């Protein structure tokens, strides 16, 4: 079974530039998550999709970050314009919808994209 794919793996940009990250979840996983992980910290949820709808974006800085999941499969996370404090690893994860089985399902994580903003 293929895992969660992310690209690019590394990105270096200057502040005020734009950047986009792509994620392809595991086939059949209804839920997709984007996390920001700053060095030395735990992952922070940015946005959670259920199919192609947003269920939680309370911690997404909406003035500069945007995300979409067209057709309920792949997802793109964009930052425009980037700030120095956006330097982090951006993790994508996916999981099955637990409501069908009534049991929680684990998240499967991609390798992440390391963003450096200069």
């Amino acid at each position, binding site marked *: 079974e293929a895992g969660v794919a992310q690209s690019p793996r590394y990105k270096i940009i200057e502040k005020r530039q734009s950047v986009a990250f792509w994620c392809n979840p595991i086939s059949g996983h209804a839920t997709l*998550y984007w996390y920001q992980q700053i060095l030395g910290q735990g*992952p922070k949820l940015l946005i959670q999709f*259920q199919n192609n709808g947003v269920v*939680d974006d309370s911690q997404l800085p909406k003035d500069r970050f945007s995300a979409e999941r067209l057709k309920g499969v792949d997802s793109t996370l964009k930052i425009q314009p980037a700030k120095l404090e956006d330097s982090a690893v951006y*993790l994508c994860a996916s999981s099955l919808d637990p*409501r069908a089985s009534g049991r929680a399902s*684990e998240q499967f994580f991609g390798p992440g994209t390391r963003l450096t903003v200069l």
Partner: protein
Amino acid sequence: AQSVTQLDSHVSVSEGTPVLLRCNYSSSYSPSLFWYVQHPNKGLQLLLKYTSAATLVKGINGFEAEFKKSETSFHLTKPSAHMSDAAEYFCVVSDIRTDTGNQFYFGTGTSLTVIP
């Protein structure tokens, strides 16, 4: 509301000695609990999970964890540390919401150092 507290930000053990990484949770529901490991410059890998079956859960690489409802704890243990266990470990609690499905709450992580 759900929350997770990892009681130690750093743990250091000698190779071959036992490992104990502590996790306490707060949950209004019957939670599911997970331990993930993150090696340097790698993504997160599931070590083990508890989803209301056996309270003693065995995971990969010799790790196990015991769910203790009375203590609201889910501590991670391993009888004998190996150099390859050096990594960051995250305890995660999850509930199932009727409106949104899975919601996951991460602890702040415990960095494990293994001394040769």
